[in-house]
């Protein structure tokens, strides 16, 4: 199997899908000639032309609205937000037009919104956000957040083939840092959780970029056997896998990079507190970014985003509980 970066895996998924389904096209700001702010679409315009790899005006609401329109007449648009932070600029089109369409009138909206998200490189308050919770709280949107190169490709293909609007969170900090074996051709990764590491003393439940932070933090924790559950999909949320992990481990740490209040982690924790209560051998601990904009200067950003040491410390405390 070819080895590639997380970023290459995303490009590969786009290329494969565009080759085998002419309805698929990508659109966004600077994605054509330039190949995208992160070069995810580099080379695609040369292969597929300017109509299928479309440089749009700088207008996020228009990108989503136009994608919805194209989708309902038979296309399969894949939109890129230059940074996931800009989803705030098309929030209305996404939650009100795309999200509610099928429930209201039985009309499917097969669109994918690629959202380069996350911090860790001094992107500052407007280029470091993790908007997944906003999207999870909007009925009718699916939300996925791969952590590995193979899942990035498989989940993007699954998202493109899904008849619903799917928000695809790709963590900028994984783009070039994470490599892995990626099957050639097309395959779909199911929108279910994945056990990133087995273990039964405690489970760390997370997704996206934090999967790697969690793995590193729990690698060698006084010999404790710590499971890491990579959710992969947030909507649908693999409740069975979460509860199974809680049942096996009894102690739970929920980690997300987003601001803590009403985050994905809050939902996971609330789910467990309601349906997994009897399995719990201790409080459900959370590690997340406090409710603060992501600061620019390295020492500040580091103090805000969950670090390996923060997770390790929380795990230690809970193990000792």
């Amino acid at each position, binding site marked *: 199997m070819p080895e590639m970066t997380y970023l290459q895996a995303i490009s590969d998924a786009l290329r494969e899908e565009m080759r085998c389904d002419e309805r698929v096209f990508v659109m966004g700001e600077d994605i054509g000639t330039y190949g995208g702010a992160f070069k995810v679409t580099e080379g695609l315009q040369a292969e597929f032309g300017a109509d299928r790899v479309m440089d749009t005006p700088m207008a996020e609401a*228009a990108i989503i*609205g136009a994608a919805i*329109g*194209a989708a309902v*007449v038979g296309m399969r648009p894949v939109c890129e937000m230059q940074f996931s932070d800009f989803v705030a600029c098309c929030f209305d089109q996404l939650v009100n*037009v795309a999200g509610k369409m099928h429930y209201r009138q*039985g009309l499917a909206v097969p669109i994918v919104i690629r959202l380069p998200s996350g911090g860790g490189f001094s992107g500052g308050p407007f280029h470091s956000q993790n908007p997944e919770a906003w999207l999870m709280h909007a009925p009718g949107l699916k939300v996925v957040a791969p952590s590995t190169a193979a899942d990035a490709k498989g989940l993007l293909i699954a998202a493109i083939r899904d008849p619903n609007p799917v928000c695809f969170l790709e963590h900028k900090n994984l783009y070039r840092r994470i490599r892995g074996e990626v099957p050639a051709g097309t395959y779909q990764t199911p929108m279910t959780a994945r056990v990133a590491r087995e273990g039964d003393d405690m489970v760390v439940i997370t997704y996206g970029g934090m999967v790697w932070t969690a793995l590193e933090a729990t690698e060698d924790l006084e010999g404790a056997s710590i499971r890491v559950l990579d959710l992969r999909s947030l909507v649908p949320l693999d409740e069975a896998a979460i509860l199974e992990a809680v049942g096996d481990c009894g102690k739970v740490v929920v980690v997300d990079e987003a601001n803590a209040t009403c985050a994905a982690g809050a939902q996971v924790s609330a789910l467990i507190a309601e349906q997994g209560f009897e399995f719990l051998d201790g409080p459900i601990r959370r590690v997340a970014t406090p409710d603060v904009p992501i600061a620019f200067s390295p020492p500040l950003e580091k103090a805000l985003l969950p670090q390996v040491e923060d997770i390790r410390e929380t795990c230690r405390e809970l193990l000792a509980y």
Partner: protein
Amino acid sequence: MATSTTSQPRAAEVERLTLADRVDLLRYMLRMRGIEQRAMTLYRQGQVPGSFYDGLGQEAVSAGAAFAMAAEDRLCILHRDLAAHLIRGVEPERIFAQYMGRCSGLTEGRDGNVHFGDRRLGCVGMVSMLPDMMLVAVGMAMAFRIRGERRCALTWLGDGSTSRGDCHEAMNWAGVQRLPVIFVLENNQFAYSTPTSKQYAVNPVERAAGYGFPGVSVDGNDVEAMFAATLEARERAIDGGGPTLIAAETMRMHGHAAHDDMAYVPSELVDHWRGRDPIELEEGRLVAAGVDVEGLRAEVGVELEEALRLAREHPFPAASSAREGVFCEGEAQALGDGLARWSGYA
């Protein structure tokens, strides 16, 4: 640079209407008014949940524009445009059922009043946020252009909606990509209680030039003029000539919704427009052409009473179905074709 022009019903297009077409145009306007009048009564009787919006006095805008659309065209119909649904093929019975929240309504009770569109007839139901559907229409037109199809998309928007950013993003994008899309600006003088003077300093029809396509002012109460202007725009669109903004001057003769007594509207204004009723205008023409207009009115009345009688009997949706259908489980189905009523398409 194209600038705005006022088009009177131009011989060229109007002459392409047969007498039968013109009778049809009147029929759809009569149906729209008849349905909305009955629905208003239903609302007062507590049979229509939520609120109720109608398009009294604006019937020509949706009837004339929709009549010029082909089966393969796609529409996003707004809340004052009931005639457009009828022209695409939606039965009055299902509209009454929709208003009453019955399971046989177009949204099966999921959405209310005019927030509907029959996907099998090439229509996307509007969302409440205005004018979001302009961007959806732009996207449909973009797909037509990419696939090289001779089709176009059309949507309506109100005078108040011109203030929203989405209106600009849609007009700009359509202009840059020269898309086959038609925007029908329905200037009914008010946005809820807000007069156009608080909405814009310059008539938005003037803005089309700034986006690189024509803006055309039309008498929105003249159904034949609306048809003519729309047909002209459609032919330009499918020939690759790009978008058109049609500004239809009309008047909202009722309050914003059923609860609104529109005390804020000067009575002279209402009187002025009452004298320009779009249905009476067309009836006058057809009477002169020897058409039995009274007979037509009676016919429509009977038809609607029967539709209403049947709709009243439809059940409400089952509570157990409330959670179903948030996501599409099967294959995504694209929009279907609507009916094309104009004889020129036969």
